[in-house]
């Protein structure tokens, strides 16, 4: 067995899966509370990625960075999460709030409208070209430097940053949801919105917080994607959002560990099918596997089976 190939595919799958997982978390959180498929979520990820790119540009451009890499990473993440979060809250406030009790399909179309708007507004303002974080040209090129695992598999620091960053954010989110009062309110709201509001939980407040956190995670995912995979362009959110949506549902939509598991599943399925089956049909293989998973476990890997109440 070719261990080099195996380890490389494993790491590559986990890295890519981490990005999916972060986007999928936001998807899942919003879905859990509003039962809304927020198709604009991928575009928040795009905006986050552009914010990171903007900060690189402001600090002098990739080849001439004006600040140390660790500081840059911190500033990028902070700004992208803040910007993404605020954008998410704005979208909720202005596009979705009035539709909270409308037929479920109405906010879906609104979400598509928001997605159209964001993608094309980004193209209008920022141009359609592909931009690059170009972290290979940074003075301390985290995307090039790395270390060699046994079996000659190379791991870049960028990959490590993405994976560690994701783990930190996921652990933080879990602690937040499990331990804090707002987190408990979120879980209660997601369990039963009406009952939660009758128990005195400020549902509006909880929804805003959910949108903020979910969108901030998408913003962070945008920065991570830029560090590891360089490219930023206005339509990047569409495909990423699609895969994250898939990840969220495969994991069990509404379930946070499920979203992470779903993201990793997709990332690994993609990289292993490219490595071992066929690069051309890798997407087909992934979708085939996922259809099988869904048919065997209709409520997703970690989702609770829906109990219909009469």
């Amino acid at each position, binding site marked *: 067995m070719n261990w*080099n*190939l195996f380890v*490389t*595919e494993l*790491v*590559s*799958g986990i*890295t*890519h899966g981490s990005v999916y997982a972060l986007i999928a978390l936001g998807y899942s959180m919003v879905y859990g509370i509003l039962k809304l498929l927020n198709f604009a979520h991928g575009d928040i990820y795009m905006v986050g990625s552009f914010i990171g790119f903007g900060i690189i540009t402001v600090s002098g451009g990739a080849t001439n960075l004006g600040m140390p890499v660790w500081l840059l990473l911190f500033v990028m993440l902070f700004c992208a999460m803040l910007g993404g979060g605020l954008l998410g809250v704005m979208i909720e406030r202005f596009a979705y709030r009035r539709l909270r009790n409308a037929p479920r399909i109405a906010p879906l179309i609104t979400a598509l409208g928001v997605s159209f708007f964001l993608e*094309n507004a980004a*193209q209008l303002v920022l*141009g*359609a*070209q*592909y*931009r*690059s974080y170009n972290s*290979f040209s940074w003075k301390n090129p985290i*995307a*090039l430097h*790395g270390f*060699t695992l046994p079996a*000659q598999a*190379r791991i*870049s620091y960028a990959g490590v940053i993405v994976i560690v960053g994701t783990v930190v954010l996921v652990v933080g989110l879990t602690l937040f949801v499990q331990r804090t009062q707002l987190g408990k309110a979120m879980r209660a709201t997601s369990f039963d919105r009406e009952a939660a509001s009758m128990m005195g939980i400020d549902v509006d407040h909880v929804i805003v917080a959910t949108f903020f956190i979910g969108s901030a995670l998408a913003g962070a995912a945008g920065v991570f*994607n830029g560090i*590891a*995979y*360089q*490219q930023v*362009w*206005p*339509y*990047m959110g*569409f*495909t990423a959002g699609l895969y994250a949506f898939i990840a969220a549902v495969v994991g069990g939509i509404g379930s946070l560990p499920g979203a992470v598991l779903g993201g990793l599943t997709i990332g690994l399925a*993609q*990289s*292993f099918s*490219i*490595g071992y089956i066929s*690069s*051309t049909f890798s*997407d087909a293989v992934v979708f085939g596997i996922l259809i099988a998973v869904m048919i065997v476990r209709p409520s997703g890997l970690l989702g609770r089976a829906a109990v219909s109440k009469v």
Partner: protein
Amino acid sequence: MVRRFGLIAIAATAVVLAIVSAAAARPAAQAAATASCSKGVSIGMQAPITGPAGSIGSDQLHWALFYFTQWNKTHKLKIHLVQEDTQLDPSKASTTAQALASNHAVMGVIGPAGSDEVQAVAPIFRKAGLAFASGSATRVSLTSGAWKGYFFRDVPNDGVQGPTDADYMFANLGVTSGSSVMVVDDQESYSTGLADIVGQALSGKGVKVDRESVSQKATDFSSLIAKVTSSTKVVFLPFQIASEAQLFAQQLQAQGKTAIAFGSDGTFDATNFTVNGSYISFFAPDVTTIPADASIVNVFHKQFPGATSPFGAPNYVLAQMYATAITKACKDGKISRAEVRKDVLKVSLKSTILGGPMRLTANGDVAGAKFHIFKIENGKYVTVA
């Protein structure tokens, strides 16, 4: 219930009115009709301005628009650009082609971008008697004669590029019979066509060709690069997006692979593909590196900030070509589509921003097409063949 019928009625009347007024406003085109030049002439433009291929299309649009803006500042004969967005979708291309064909002011068309789109729109433009010239459709069969006199392109086709690249790899990059080359396409027609040609040329020489493909949507190549072995000498990347070739080449290096990245004309972009030691083939010297073009590129960036791609500048030359043809056709104060079609073939530009003369062959291909090979050294493109 009450409102629904009212709405049906209102919507129906509105639509009928809209259709009737549109019909009245845009009289049907007479393909052979002549028009006066005094009010200006229109040139249509089809490009994937929005959507996933927006980076290519908007650049194409900007270069053509740029030429005509400059032209209109200094010439009495005004040329308007009518832009139509195809999103690289052949069926949208044919609908918008109908729009251009029905617009009797349009005398020629720049675009569409993709070879599929060219196939889709060709019957429409032929019926309308319109010349259409693409700055990026390189499939060999397009100029094999079916649309002779209607379809033109100012970029050499894949039949020129593929063998040049394969020969160069074989002669200079250590590719021998028995060693292997990875050919990666990005699953659209430009890329698969070129990859097929290069793959066949190499297999013909006994080279082991590892044919792979990644979706253009992919942002991660590391899983594919893991399959590059030590006997892989070259990875051929006929991509449409330069920064994807950049990422591929960078990840090759990051994983410690020794294979050389070799890009096609679609990746020729001195700002976005800069990995040292990589090779690229292109049909002209780089626009952004030709000293004589510096002023033009500067003015262009003033109007359209941001990077440009290799798919842009050929459309500038096409605009130049149409402007020349229209000037000729307008000598008598009148112009027709047939005149433009004939005059386009007579256009001979002494030097273009693509760094050489431009003339078309009777089939509509660019005359004297030749591919140059470049090597990237310290971020600069150096001509090696």
